[in-house]
């Protein structure tokens, strides 16, 4: 973010009172300290109350049998929740599902977003129009997008009608969300459709940091578009790349809304996710202790993956 502030002309030193003497300065810095603390208090208090406390609670509750609403106080149960968790087939299914989802979505969404960013970075007519249209699904809530696609994915829905038309009736589309083999791919396709515009903008801001004279020099040398990309654009995006990788991964692992609206984890757990399992046990079954254990395991996984990704992208840079 660049500042566009004009510096005011330096105030003339003459006619100003002399610098405050030493004791007065101490007093100002004490009031400054107090005023500063007062300004910090609301934010710090709220962050402590709604981020630090629940984070610590997640650790604490994971080792208890706490329930959301219960007449009995929570008691310490040691590793019981974790023992139960690692014996839970649905939880393993959830881990596999989010792993599958992330492995497909991360390269697909990042790659498509980069292509789109390059397309709208060219200064041709209507660039702003295309940028706006590509970005439209991002401002549309995931709940609405899920509803819309739930309708389009029906056996007799728009997507199957289009498949039928395009192939002249040779291919009959599946019942996307009610078939264990197509349910996850269907969710993946829709999620990329909704989220790709977001990462297009982030790539775009990375593209705009690449100095234009590099491209001008390349044009003088008459390089091919591929060489331009390979030797100027790609190396120029290394910082943006690792950032996009981390954000898409975390977003993919946190998959929840689409599942809650469209499939409720089904059919046969083929679309259940870690966050969905946590919400099911913590909210629907009111087992806060068990849900906290799931949240804790999830947090450790997210943390590990982002640390590994950071490490790998730093090595290459």
């Amino acid at each position, binding site marked *: *973010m660049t500042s566009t*502030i004009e510096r005011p002309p330096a105030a003339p030193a003459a006619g100003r009172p002399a610098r405050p003497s030493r004791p007065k300065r101490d007093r100002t810095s004490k009031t400054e300290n107090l005023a500063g603390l007062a*300004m910090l208090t609301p934010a710090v208090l709220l962050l402590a109350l709604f981020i630090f406390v629940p984070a610590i609670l997640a650790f604490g509750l994971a080792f208890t049998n706490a329930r959301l609403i219960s007449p009995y106080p929570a008691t310490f149960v040691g590793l019981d929740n974790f023992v139960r968790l690692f014996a839970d087939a649905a939880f393993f299914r959830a881990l596999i599902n989010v792993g599958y989802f992330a492995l497909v979505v991360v390269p697909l969404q990042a790659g498509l977003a980069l292509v789109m960013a390059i*397309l709208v970075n060219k200064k041709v007519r209507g660039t702003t129009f295309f940028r706006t249209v590509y970005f439209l699904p991002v401002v549309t809530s995931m*709940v609405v997008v899920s509803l819309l696609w739930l309708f389009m994915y029906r056996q007799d829905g728009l997507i199957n009608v289009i498949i039928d038309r395009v192939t002249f009736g040779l291919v009959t589309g599946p019942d996307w969300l009610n078939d264990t083999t197509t349910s996850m791919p269907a969710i993946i396709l829709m999620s990329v459709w909704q989220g790709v515009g977001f990462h297009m903008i982030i790539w775009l801001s990375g593209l705009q940091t690449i100095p234009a004279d590099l491209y001008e020099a390349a044009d003088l040398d008459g390089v091919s*578009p591929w060489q331009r990309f390979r030797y100027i654009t790609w190396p120029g995006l290394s910082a943006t790349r690792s950032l996009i990788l981390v954000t898409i991964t975390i977003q993919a692992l946190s998959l929840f809304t689409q599942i809650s609206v469209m499939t409720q984890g089904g059919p046969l757990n083929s679309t259940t996710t870690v966050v969905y399992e946590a919400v099911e046990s913590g909210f629907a079954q009111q087992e*806060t202790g068990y849900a906290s254990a799931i949240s804790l395991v999830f947090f450790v996984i997210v943390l590990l993956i982002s640390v590994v990704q950071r490490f790998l992208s730093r090595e290459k840079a």
Partner: protein
Amino acid sequence: MAISQVAIPEVAPASAPHVVLGQKTARKKRVVGIGGWILRIGLAVLFLFPILFMFVSSLKPDQQIFGDLSSIAAFLPIGNISMDNYAAVFDRVPAARFLVNSIGISAITVIAGILVNSLAAFALSRMRVRGKTVILTLIIATLIVPFETLALPLVWWVNQLPSFELTELGFMFSKGWIDTYQVQIIPFVANAFSIYLFHQYFESIPKELDEAARMDGAGWFRIYRQVVMPLSGPAIATVAILTFLPAWNSYLWPLMVVQTEELRPVMVGVQYFFQLNVSWGEVMAYSTLITLPVVALFIAFQRSFVNSIASSGVKG
């Protein structure tokens, strides 16, 4: 949604490099150029048509929606067009109430968020406060925690918090924030990323400005209010948008902490449509209804939206 009719400010005119190219390169460039246009338009169709389909379907009776699927009519507002679905939505769901709730919740979260986070950032950027670096580090550290991991312990926690109401008898204490407006607002006011954005922006405002103001006897709060904030328009817009979008779109959180119908936000209203017989025209009408305010804001403040997302790329 007449996106295509919106006047769009053109980007700075391209300065075409006047370079004599070899015949072969020129042809190659043209092929790439045409390919680029096909891709651009193809992608635009892919992103625009589902949204167009949603809007057009919201105007048609169910029978016609399914009848139109196999032709281009699926994307055209033709045939038996009416606002009947919208009327039915208001019968099935207290949609007006939900809209008012969501507008109120988002607006208060945005305003309080701008105030609380900019004040904190101002103190961190401008003032000598003891333990400043530790506080800043702790604030930034909260960025690594995805909300989804905190949500469930947080439900339990807000259920333990004391709540006080003003009744005829004076202040009344009760336990639990479940089923209130405040539980949908207060946890989302302070935001480490907003503080970070304000902090970055404030750092770019010359400190000589507040020194001059201090010479004139201005207090710290006055410098914040009359010097720094008036110069921070872009940062305020960014924070406003990045706070508004999740507030308007919030679904998981109100699903868990709000049971009373009168307090529900728009996204939770979606559940009403799958209880008995599903009318897809109504679902599409409700979807359009809760999307329209955001799309309108987006088109009005397009540049700020794009800038705010671009700056969220700084995160991490």
